[in-house]
């Protein structure tokens, strides 16, 4: 068994006005696992993903990622931690519209450390977009844009990949392509946490956590993730 890469204890998140988005969440995520988070709209699953992704801070509780307690980090420290450890995949891709596919990926390199055009091109080739490097987002299909988004998340080689409804805006065929890509990344050893509405997609993960009213209402482990075991055996 691989160790836990993420540990969350008694996590609460209160927004101004008293909205309680998370209300005492405890969970741990094993390294190399694929966890899906499901729940009704407004249940707090995106808030949980944002806090794990260091985009938001908890009101109470502890979040430890890769042995670092991130709850107490300042804004810039969170940014630095995020760029080194976490890749983000968004439902709406969020590509910079005036930069090409390649430049969108290079931008993540620039903000991380140094720009390496070949590395960025390799990341796009890995997601099957080697032939679309110089296309602007507006010249790409939704599925292609999402793949650029994944390439951008991967280019700095984070250990954790967080995806918020990555197929939510895609048709079935494109959605399947993206999920196959995420599955391949999981096989390569990335820890994946994915928020989804779709029960069919949720079952693709090793484990599914259901959040209702800011609490974990169900935690289903489908299998020990085999790739981590392989990694441990090696």
């Amino acid at each position, binding site marked *: 068994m691989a160790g836990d890469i993420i540990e969350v204890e008694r996590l609460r998140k209160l927004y101004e006005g008293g909205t309680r988005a998370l209300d005492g969440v405890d969970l741990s995520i094993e390294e190399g696992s694929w966890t899906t988070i499901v729940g009704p709209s407004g249940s707090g699953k995106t808030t949980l993903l944002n806090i794990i992704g260091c985009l938001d801070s908890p009101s109470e509780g502890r979040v430890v990622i890769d042995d670092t307690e991130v709850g107490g980090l300042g804004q810039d420290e969170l940014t630095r931690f995020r760029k080194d450890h976490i890749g983000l995949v968004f439902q709406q891709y969020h590509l910079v519209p005036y930069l090409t596919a390649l430049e969108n990926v290079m931008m993540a390199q620039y903000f*991380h450390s140094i720009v390496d055009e070949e590395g960025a091109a390799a990341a796009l080739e890995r997601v099957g977009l080697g032939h679309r490097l110089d296309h602007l987002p507006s010249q790409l299909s939704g599925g292609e844009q999402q793949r650029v988004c994944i390439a951008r998340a991967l280019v700095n080689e984070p250990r954790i990949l967080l995806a918020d409804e990555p197929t939510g805006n895609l048709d079935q065929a494109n959605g399947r392509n993206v999920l196959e890509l995420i599955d391949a990344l999981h096989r390569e050893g990335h820890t994946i946490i994915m928020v989804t509405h779709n029960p069919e997609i949720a079952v693709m993960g090793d484990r599914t956590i259901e959040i209702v009213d800011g609490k974990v209402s169900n935690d289903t482990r489908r299998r020990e993730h085999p790739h981590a075991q392989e990694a441990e055996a090696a």
Partner: protein
Amino acid sequence: MLMRILRKSLARRKSRIALAAVAVLMGAAVATALMTVSLDVTEKVSLEFRKYGANLMVVPRSDTIDVGFPGVQLGSVTEQRYINESELWKIKTIYWRNNVLGFTPFLYQVVEASDGNDTQDVVLAGTYFNKEVTILEPYAPQDATLFRTGIQEINPWWKVDGQWIGDPNDTRSAMVGTAVAEKLGVGIGDELTLTYRPLVGAEGNTTTHGATVVGIITTDGVEDNQVFVNLQVAQGLTSRPGKVHTVQVSALCTKCPVETFASEIEAKIPSVEGKTVKQLVNAEMSTLDMVTGLMLMVTLVALFASALGVMTTMTSSVIERRKEIGLMKAVGAERRKIVALFLSEAAIIGALGGAAGFAGGVVLAQVIGMSVFSTSIGLHALVLPAVLGLSIAVALLASLLPVRRATSIEPAIVLRGE
């Protein structure tokens, strides 16, 4: 990568950027005009100062009587029309005597000058060329009792074709201004007859004096229209022995104001008053002060308007691009990189507006120069970097608030999926 992001982001928002650059342009143009005009005109005025070797003019004191009607005054019965040549040595006996580099008296009279063919009215100026003045009562015992002075000491840069009159007792030589030489068609070695005719009813007889032209003077000033002879020649011709009209004094002092010289000389020779050249150019200076003061105000207002223009553009840019900023932060952009991005954008707007404003300001400066000072305005190398720096600084300052807004954007909020 920063340059690539900047270039593409600016290219995408050309019209908005152009609008902000125009806002900067306005301020930069007025600032350019202000700097160019004040630098150039101030330099011209101070050049006048330097050109005018004598920085102190001693003239007879003229008392006036107010007659109770604004602007109308009568010359007083006590009015002095001349200064006594015999008192000139006292100028060298003031406290700051060592700073008096030279002085030279002038006696002026309009006379007829003729070369035998043409006759022309000219101003005859009697003066010292190279004269040893005896200091009768030196200020301190160790002071020299002889002081060599003259027009050469005061105006060493006058261009002279031929030679100066070297002998103070030479009554046969004359130096003529270049304009006089041209009008009369005389050159070096030519004979000149000077005829003085008193006004009808005035005392004295018509007198003439013959002189040889030994030098032709070019100063680009009034001297070009004058004829210079030794003082005693002019005094003799016009029957004013021992009299002079004015004395030009060249005083050099970095620690003491030239006004001090004036008041000291007035104390030594009570019938005179000292006018500094500064007073003479005061009118010009005060016009300059007024124009620069006005332009400074307009510049400040224009720069304020520029800043507002840039601030509006940058604020709307931040609002429009909040998702992009949120995304940049989400993928790892620290605050300083967001700050660098937006401030670089502001600096580019400032530089573009500043460069265009400089061009506009140069034209504006010419218009002001011609209409207010009746002179064309020269360009100064300093103005372009100064205006560019100022424009960039204004654009950067105006961007501080919008940039602060950009850095406080929370990615989790702006990137929310819904």
